[in-house]
């Protein structure tokens, strides 16, 4: 094909042509002026140079560095134990959007099992070393809050045919406060939109809004429709599963520090005989998530059960994993696909493959047509296996009970774990639970016994104290040593074990006994009673003769070697060594340590340097050469390279390296320990399946248990049981209707807890004063101070006015923020103005009344600053005898009788100590939550009390004006005026003076010459003409406007008439129609 080159056609008309013409013209003009061409939007720019100027480069570097810094986050040590615990996938959405279907499809995808109703969490093995727990959450606020606290991944289900709903946004808001998990959006009900174009538009809109709400690039899935079986398309489910499997989960600070259990099964373990209303004993089962669960000894510790409150955990036990990870730790299995056997599922609350768990029984449900329970056929489902096991049982439980030793579940578990011995044999001085009076009694007895046992030792301590200066009288010491020998004989088998931990923590042994077991020649001097931790050397001790002692001093070798040499020579070496060490890292500490002493760090005999012998010098040279060789070898091996590269590392990298190092050290140490001591040291690791027995749970909990909302048991960190005043930085949500009122109760969700408290809002002034605010400000943060359990600084806070209540179209999140400070007491102040009026005015002092009620009150305010409205300042001096509450005050100037005097003071606002757990789990579902305070408004509505009206606060017309007051003008004596600088001198001439001057002018007559007179006359005439013309024009204008106004009025009247007629007609027609309708009806 022939290539024809047609020249580009230049535009001759239109916008472009005009622009080009203009630019060409401008260029020509510039050229004619001898100037360079300036850049024009339409003229192509010159090519950029390869090397831009120094400033440009600087700017570029700065910008990129800033970008990097914005992105940088300091690595956080991961204490969640990797993938051990199942990840919680929360499927959230309002009612009827298709949450259950998604879970069903996903579970079927992972395990090939069908699930009926989604009750409680469902745990499945999703990969070789991964497990997922699915949780369905609807729009109920309490379940949304709890779910947000534990979610690792959120599947936000959105019905496209309906659009976004308020619950979705509320949930996202709650999530962002409690630690934002990963979020994937799922659009359902796409098949309801028939039109292709509309669907496309809708999808785009959804995607836009979704990415705006979460983050750019947030993943959104579209489920195009249902199959005949009522499931989503297999391909789409597979895609979603694939996306879940590659999700990298975030480390969320709260969960990195708190262990928690997502309860998937619970049992009421209360004894039958007990019919107490309060105090059910319930066993909770679930995987441990978050971080390690460690608790103080004595095994009674607190955990938080959201919706109930803090509960005391009675017993903790590790159970075999019901849904084990398919691949073992060693990672020997490298297959890509899981076999059907490995696809484990665990959902004890719901019914899966025929097994359902009840409170105290397990039901096996087998469809008749699928199973045959006779014959030797390989059983298929789990339920079938169980039935077959039952078939093979030869003796009944009763028989077994009679014959064998019964192993109750709990005891066996305790035996498996650690403290059983300690618990049974406890002769403890310390008892954790003061609330349990019985146990205290027992403990007291024990400690009494202990004291009698250890009486001799107490005496021992006292004696030791007394005889401290005599270095222990011989008799005493012999007695002690004798005692120790007896103790030693007792434990001859393992008299000196390597690991002392058991001794130390054995509470049967008194600390002194432990000490004596371990010691030979020393006795403790400071007794525990006096808080002293010291040893004293006894006469038996031959410390000074100990040959090892000399080795503990830095120049001891030299002393031994050069015994015949002079003392000074060793001295010299010593200083050398010091200088060597001073290059160490610790050297600055060394120097500081003695900085308080004088500067004589070096030895007093330093001037004897010359006395150093020749052979010691040789030695030194030898040492140096040796060191040089060592250095060379290291250099060749590249060890130094590595060192330098470590120095080159950025802070972030170095920090990560350090964290990894610490982690490996910890792992190494724990790997060497046996199971018991490992658990003692680090607690239960995340991922273990635990059974927690909790006592004293209100009966209503079991009665109203709702398996559809997530149940959590969160660990309460040490210090979080303490109650104090908390200050949070809070902002009302912009979608919340109305302001939040100070001292109205508000429900807070912080950490695991949800509680109601009374916040006091305040803002900090420039001078650090915390000023009371009546309402939360609009679009601004403010401080809210409330009473509650202590939490770590920076923990997210989200507030609601109600968690229950009717469905509302309003946004339910009231405010959100973070904890900024805790304190025993906060000083929030409110302005107070005390107003008084003069009783009598003297020159600069006056008697003021009406400000206080009594002398006592006045005397509290002696010296306080007061002020009149006009700004005259003063101070309170002394109370008057009568009338009560009046006082003498002095001012900087004379005040008027009509002045109002006021005192501006700040009063501290009282902070209520009110905090109540929101116990929504103790109420029937979707009913009002009990024991919560109502706001003033709600109370008024309930009791039908109108808002009180203060007459004085109402607006009214003012009929009578206040009396007009005349003040004498300010008189400034001329002598004072003369001394003032010009800037302060009065510049305006008073009217009187002006008058005097003008009258003077009048008296003077001006004589004009003829030319001037002529000019004057001319001006006068011209002015007359102008004035006359203006007058005429004004008259004409007036007449014209009058005519126009009349015209307008006429037109308006006509229009109105037309409108009236039309209306009349319309109403008649409508009336007639209505009449007709009535007749028909």
């Amino acid at each position, binding site marked *: 094909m022939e290539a024809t080159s047609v020249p580009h056609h230049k535009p001759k008309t239109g916008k472009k042509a005009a622009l080009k013409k203009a630019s060409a013209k401008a260029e020509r003009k510039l050229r004619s002026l001898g100037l360079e061409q300036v850049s024009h939007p339409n003229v192509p720019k010159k090519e950029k140079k390869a090397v831009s100027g120094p400033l440009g480069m600087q700017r570029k570097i700065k910008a990129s560095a800033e970008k990097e810094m914005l992105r940088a986050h300091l690595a956080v040590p991961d204490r969640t134990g990797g993938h051990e615990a199942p990840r919680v996938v929360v499927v959230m959405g309002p009612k009827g959007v298709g949450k259950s279907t998604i879970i069903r499809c996903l579970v079927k995808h992972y395990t090939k099992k069908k699930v009926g109703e989604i009750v409680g969490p469902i745990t499945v093995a999703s990969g070789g070393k991964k497990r997922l727990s699915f949780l369905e959450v609807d729009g109920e606020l309490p379940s949304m809050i709890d779910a947000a606290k534990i979610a690792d991944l959120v599947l936000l289900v959105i019905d496209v045919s309906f659009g976004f709903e308020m619950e979705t946004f509320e949930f996202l808001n709650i999530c962002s406060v409690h630690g934002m998990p990963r979020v994937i959006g799922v659009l359902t009900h796409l098949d309801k939109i028939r039109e292709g174009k509309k669907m496309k538009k809708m999808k785009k809109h959804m995607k836009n809004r979704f990415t705006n709400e979460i983050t750019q690039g947030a993943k959104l899935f579209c489920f195009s429709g249902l199959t005949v079986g009522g499931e989503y398309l297999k391909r789409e489910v597979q895609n979603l599963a694939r996306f879940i499997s590659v999700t990298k989960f975030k480390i969320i600070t709260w969960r990195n520090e708190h262990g928690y259990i997502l309860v998937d099964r619970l049992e009421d373990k209360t004894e039958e005989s007990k019919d107490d209303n309060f105090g059910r004993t319930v066993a909770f089962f679930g995987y441990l998530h978050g971080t390690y669960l460690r608790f103080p000894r004595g095994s009674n510790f607190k955990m938080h059960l959201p919706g109930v409150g803090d509960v005391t955990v009675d017993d903790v036990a590790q159970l075999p994993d019901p849904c084990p990870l398919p691949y073992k730790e060693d990672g020997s299995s490298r297959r890509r696909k899981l076999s059907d056997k490995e696809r484990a599922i665990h959902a004890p609350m719901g019914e899966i493959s025929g097994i359902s768990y009840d409170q105290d029984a397990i039901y096996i449900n087998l469809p008749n047509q699928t199973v045959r329970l006779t014959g030797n056929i390989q059983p298929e489902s789990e339920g079938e296996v169980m039935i077959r096991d039952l078939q093979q049982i030869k003796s009944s439980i009763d028989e077994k009970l009679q014959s064998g030793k019964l192993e109750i579940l709990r005891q066996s578990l305790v035996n498996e774990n650690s403290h059983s011995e300690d618990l049974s044999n406890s002769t403890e001085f*310390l008892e954790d639970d003061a609330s349990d009076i019985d146990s205290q009694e027992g403990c007291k007895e024990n400690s009494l016994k202990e004291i009698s046992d250890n009486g001799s030792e107490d005496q021992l301590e006292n004696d030791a104290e007394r005889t401290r200066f005599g270095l222990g009288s011989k008799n005493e010491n012999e007695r002690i040593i004798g005692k120790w020998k007896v103790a030693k004989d007792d434990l001859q088998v393992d008299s000196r074990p390597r690991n002392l931990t058991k001794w130390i923590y054995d509470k049967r042994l008194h600390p002194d006994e432990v000490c004596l077991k371990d010691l030979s020649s020393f006795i403790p001097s400071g007794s525990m009673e006096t808080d002293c931790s010291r040893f004293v050397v006894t006469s038996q001790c031959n410390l000074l003769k100990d040959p090892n002692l000399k080795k503990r001093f830095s120049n001891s070798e030299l002393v031994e070697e050069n015994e015949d040499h002079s003392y000074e020579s060793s001295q010299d070496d010593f200083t050398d060594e010091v200088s060597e060490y001073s290059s160490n890292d610790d050297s600055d500490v060394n120097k500081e340590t003695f900085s308080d002493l004088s500067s004589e760090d070096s030895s007093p005999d330093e001037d004897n340097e010359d006395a150093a012998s020749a052979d010691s010098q040789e030695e030194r040279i030898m040492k140096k050469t040796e060191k040089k060789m060592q250095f060379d070898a290291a250099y060749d091996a590249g060890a130094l390279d590595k060192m330098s590269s470590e120095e080159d590392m950025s802070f972030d990298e170095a920090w990560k390296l350090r964290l990894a190092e610490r982690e490996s050290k910890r792992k190494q140490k724990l790997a060497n320990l046996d199971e018991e001591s490992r658990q003692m040291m680090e607690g239960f690791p995340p991922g273990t399946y635990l059974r927690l027995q909790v006592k004293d749970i209100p009966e209503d909990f079991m009665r109203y248990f709702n398996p559809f909302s997530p149940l959590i048991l969160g660990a309460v960190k040490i210090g979080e049981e303490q109650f104090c005043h908390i200050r949070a930085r809070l902002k009302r949500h912009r979608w919340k209707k109305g302001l939040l009122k100070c001292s109205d109760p508000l429900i807070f969700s912080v950490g695991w807890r949800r509680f109601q408290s009374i916040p006091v809002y305040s803002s900090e002034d420039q001078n650090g004063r915390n000023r009371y605010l009546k309402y939360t400000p609009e679009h601004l943060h403010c401080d809210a101070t409330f009473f509650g359990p202590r939490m770590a600084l920076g923990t997210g806070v989200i507030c609601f006015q109600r968690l229950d209540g009717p469905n509302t179209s309003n946004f339910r999140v009231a405010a959100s923020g973070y904890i900024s400070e805790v304190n025993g007491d906060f000083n929030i102040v409110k302005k107070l103005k005390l107003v008084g009026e003069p009783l009598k005015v003297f020159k600069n002092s006056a008697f003021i009344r009406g400000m206080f009620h009594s002398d006592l009150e006045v005397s509290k305010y002696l010296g306080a600053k007061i002020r009149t409205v006009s700004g005259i300042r003063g101070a309170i001096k002394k109370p008057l005898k009568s009338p009560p509450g009046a006082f003498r005050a002095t001012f900087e100037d004379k005040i008027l009788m009509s002045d109002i005097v006021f005192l501006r003071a700040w009063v501290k606002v009282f902070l209520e100590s009110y905090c109540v757990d929101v116990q929504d789990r103790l109420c029937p579902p979707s009913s009002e939550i009990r024991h919560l305070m109502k706001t003033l408004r709600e109370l008024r509505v309930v009791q039908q009390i109108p808002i009180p009206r203060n007459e004085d606060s109402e607006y009214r017309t003012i009929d009578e004006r206040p009396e007009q007051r005349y003040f004498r003008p300010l008189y400034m004596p001329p002598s004072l005026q003369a001394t003032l600088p010009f800037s302060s001198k009065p510049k305006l001439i008073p009217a009187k003076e002006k008058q005097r001057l003008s009258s003077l002018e009048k008296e003077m007559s001006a004589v004009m010459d003829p030319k001037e007179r002529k000019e004057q006359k001319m001006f006068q005439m011209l002015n007359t003409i102008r004035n006359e013309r203006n007058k005429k024009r004004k008259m004409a204008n007036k007449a014209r406007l009058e005519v126009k106004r009349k015209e307008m009025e006429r037109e308006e009247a006509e229009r109105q008439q037309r409108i009236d007629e039309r209306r009349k007609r319309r109403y008649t027609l409508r009336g007639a129609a209505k009449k007709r309708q009535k007749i028909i009806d």
Partner: protein
Amino acid sequence: MAIRVYRRVNFRYRLLLAIFTGKQIVFDFSEEAHHSKLLKPNEISLLRLLDRITSGTQLQLDEAQRLITVQPGVLIGGNFTHHCSTCRGLTYYLEFLALLAPYCKRPLEVTLTGVTAHPLDTTVDTFQNVTISLLRKLGLGKDCSLKIKKRDSSSNGLGEVLFTCPIMLKALEPIEWKERQEIKRIRGVAYCSRIPPHIANQLIDNSRNILCEYLADIFIYSDWNPGGTDLPSVSLSLFAETSNGFVLGTDCSWKGKDWNEEILSSVSQEATQAILLQAIENSVVDTNHQLFICLWMALSSADLSTVELGRLTPCTIQLLRDIQDFMGVAFQIERGSKNNFPSVLCSCIGMEYRNENRRRY
């Protein structure tokens, strides 16, 4: 959940644990021997001090003063003066403050008046040289200091010290202090009052005579207070510094009516023998500071801390038990590897205690 403790042991440290964990503690002294059923003056003074540096602390005494309930509040620190009871030395209070100060809301700057050298406690010199160096090692920097303004060991309590300590913003890094090296120098302070000044020199000489055999770099300062006290008193504090920067301190002080040569020699001998005892043990801190280290390890971040200590005293053992009861932190204690030099290796995973009392902006 209150913790109830019986018997008067480790009063200070149990109080400290209660403060750190925010738990209510009940001291039940009803089963004590008759004479010690009541609160001692020093304990009362300590509780007052606690009230000063905290906000919202609730103290409750039953009528017989045998049941003391303490609900600790929030540590606020600040700037104040406190008159300590003369029953115990100033270090009794200072040690208490030193452990709390880094976790206060504001930096602590406190003037304490009382007894600077007391037979039951270490001297302020030891605190200044050993405890402060330990605090600095934790990363508190030079702002942490002790100034001895006036020395006095009489029951008038005219001694005065100024203790300043900044606050810590993060959790303590895991502590790994092991393998102490040999001692490279010894410093010391000998102090006497209402006794001729040459007595201090005599103390120094006595001590030097023993120590010279092992080390050359010894320097002991003397300080003398001519009067103003009711009874003659002497004290000798020795600090040994190892090549890798650990400082061990021991001391001995005496106060009485009649002094004689024998008493002086026993004071110097005891202090010197104690430092030798510290030397032979393979510990990174002296016996008195075992408690400090154990507490810091329990408070440090949730990684492995390992510290080599000497033989554990009953006090330390009791503290370790209390730490487990209050905080749930359990230690692993093994014997050190070097047989000639007795030591134990203590390791634990800390509870990651952060300064939650400070303000966050």
